[in-house]
């Protein structure tokens, strides 16, 4: 089946998307928003950083998602002694029919969905090994580049507490994540449901939503996502929104008071790209072929929260990125 022949209709996209959500939600209680955004990031071709305290089901969510997608899944537990070769692979001397030669042994990065668990526990050297894979969808070992499989998605998790002995991700690496999603503790009702599902004898099984050879279908869905219509005024709104996060207003612009007070750096252009692609994905997920202002506002937090760098005053006053972004959105007119 050639790629040109596969076309996905918006309605079909929505159906697949909703089925995926439903399958994951069979295992994961709550976190509907997180699941939706992870799926949006997957079809937008981005990577996701999940942040939350231990035991909230981050790893389970990723596993469930990969099972529902029916794609290959690998997990890497990041530790301080993890080496880059442990991730990307290495040359191994092999002997075959009397001939010795080096053969490349692929690391766990060669999978459709890679879970980089507790990514902030590895050294920066190891963390940076993932950078090329995330951005270029390829790895280079001993001068030879190896292309990663498509679709490729890195889902990294990090723990906001127990920061001793950790290596916080540098801004450059954070910027490569499409979304940063916050996994929050479950509500009492959700917790009750979790207990019901996990402490009984019944266990739910996840059905594969996508066919075995889903690469072309995923590509077609990705293509459709990029075709979603976006009006110039909405694009302009995203631009103004990202621009408003700059603490030093360029072109004579005057930044909002919280931005000036609490931000060291504003969002990069990748933030605007993520916001628009995320809004397109959200529109398709809701069965629309055009982006609305509401779509943008739904994805602007996960798209920008890790791209704006807080200053010392913000940390001292316990001000977080989401508070600043909500102020920016409040002060920015749509038209």
């Amino acid at each position, binding site marked *: 089946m050639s790629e040109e022949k596969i076309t996905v209709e918006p309605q079909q996209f929505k159906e697949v998307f909703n089925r995926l959500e439903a399958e994951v939600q069979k295992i994961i209680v709550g976190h509907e928003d997180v699941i939706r955004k992870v799926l949006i990031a997957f079809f937008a071709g981005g990577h996701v950083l999940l942040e939350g305290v231990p035991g909230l089901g981050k790893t389970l969510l990723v596993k469930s998602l990969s099972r529902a997608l029916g794609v290959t899944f690998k997990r890497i537990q990041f530790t301080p002694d993890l080496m880059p070769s442990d991730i990307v692979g290495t040359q191994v001397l092999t002997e075959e029919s009397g001939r010795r030669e080096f053969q490349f042994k692929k690391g766990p990065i060669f999978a459709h969905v890679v879970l980089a668990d507790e990514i902030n526990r590895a050294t920066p050297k190891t963390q940076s090994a993932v950078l090329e894979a995330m951005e270029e969808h390829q790895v280079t070992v001993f001068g030879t580049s190896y292309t990663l499989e498509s679709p490729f998605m890195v889902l990294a998790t990090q723990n906001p507490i127990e920061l001793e002995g950790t290596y916080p991700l540098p801004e450059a690496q954070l910027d490569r994540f499409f979304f940063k999603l916050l996994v929050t503790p479950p509500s009492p009702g959700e917790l009750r449901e979790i207990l019901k599902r996990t402490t009984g004898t019944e266990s739910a099984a996840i059905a594969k939503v996508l066919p075995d050879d889903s690469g072309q279908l995923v590509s077609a869905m990705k293509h459709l996502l990029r075709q*979603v*219509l976006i*009006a*110039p*005024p*909405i694009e302009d709104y995203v631009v103004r929104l990202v621009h408003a996060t700059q603490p030093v207003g360029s072109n004579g612009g005057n930044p909002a008071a919280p931005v000036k007070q609490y931000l060291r750096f504003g969002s990069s252009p990748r933030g605007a790209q993520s916001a628009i692609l995320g809004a397109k994905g959200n529109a398709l997920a809701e069965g629309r*072929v*055009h*982006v609305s202002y509401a779509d943008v506002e739904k994805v602007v937090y996960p798209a920008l929260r890790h791209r704006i760098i807080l200053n010392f005053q913000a940390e001292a006053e316990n001000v977080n990125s989401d508070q600043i972004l909500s102020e920016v959105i409040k002060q920015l007119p749509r*038209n």
Partner: protein
Amino acid sequence: MQVLAERYGLETPEKLVTRLVKRLRQHAFWDIVLVFLPPLAVGIYCVTTLYRGGWITGAVFVIAAFTAVALILAILIHRYQSALPSLRLAAHLIDERAGATDRFITLSTIEPSSCAPSLLGRLRSEAAGFLPRVRIKHDFPYKLKRSFYRSVLGALVFAAVFHLLLPIAGSWNAPRTVPERLREIAGKMAERPRMTELARQLQTLAAKMEDVNGAREEKQAAVQEMQKKIEQEQKKEEQKDNRDLLGQAASALQGADQQPGNGQEQQKKSDGGGGGGIQSNLPEKGKGETKSSSGSGDGKGEVTAELSKDMQEGKTSAGDPKEQGKEKNQQKVGEGKGDRPDASKADGDKTQEISGKTQGEREDKQGKDKGSEDIPQGAPPAERLSRPGEEGKGGIKGARYVTVQLPEEIAADSKGTTSGTKDSKSNRVGPKLPVSNVPLPAHLPDAPTEKQRVPLEYRGIIR
């Protein structure tokens, strides 16, 4: 989408947005017109009132009207252009009204060539589904904006303040000349049928008063005659307005009566370019008319003292009144700067003032008597001499005389005898004065002349 639109008998989403843009443009136009209408009406009313009240002339009225109209048009156009609703605004309003989740804004602003036709078609049909929810006339009626009410209120307040301030400003209005006031009153009278004749006569009187060549007595007679007429008319008149108008004319004429020859004087004042409150108390070209000074007592003293000083220096009393007026102005300016003399100086000035005043009075009398003795200004020195047959004794016109004492006369004086030389012997026996080159005292025609020793270098010539 077209099929759907036809089925509902409706237009396409793009057409709906365009129609709303047109309607919003009309709204914007009326908004601006209604905001500017009250101030414009009040402005027209104020200018007309000012024109009818004689505050502004017809030319000023026309210029003001044209400028105001041009200005308002420019502002209207500018405001209209800036207030023009955009396509995206109209689409946004429809989206809000229909709950179309930004479908109309996307349709009306997106570039069709850059997007997938299938998706665009789908969006069009989705948007067409929202068309029945929007009725432009019903959903977007014209409403008066708050700015209109503010404008009306502001204009009314302005008109009220104008009405209140106009009479006050009338009292503050700079005093005009009597002929101007007469003309103004005549203009008002001309509007009333019963007073047209009187208005015409007042106009004629005003013209007569402004005539520089007219005799003063004639003018006064005309003024008095007019006063009588007005008094008669006032007695006859029954209407209060007309009586008031006649009263104004009478008071104006009374002012004219108190200012004899005012026409000429006012013209001169205006020619002089700011004579201010100071009026010359010097004789004018031999007429010898005295005028009151509106300056302070000190100023007056200083002015007269200055003038007597001039006389001491040998200037004629019948100088150019304009020049004198200028000097007075300068004096006034100096006074205004707070350049006050000290007490001892003031005493000296006082004595000078007294002498100056008497000198001035006498000069006036002389001016009246000897009107023909004007010195031709700027004439060659020969013309300053009296011609044969003319009054004088072959001396210089208006010159002052000094009796020169020769050494032998001084010697004779010391012996108690006077030399019987020259005409000074008979009638000019003055006090013996110290001989020096101090400035001569003011020239008094009847005063005895001083005696001075002839300077050595002139001895041979005078003998």
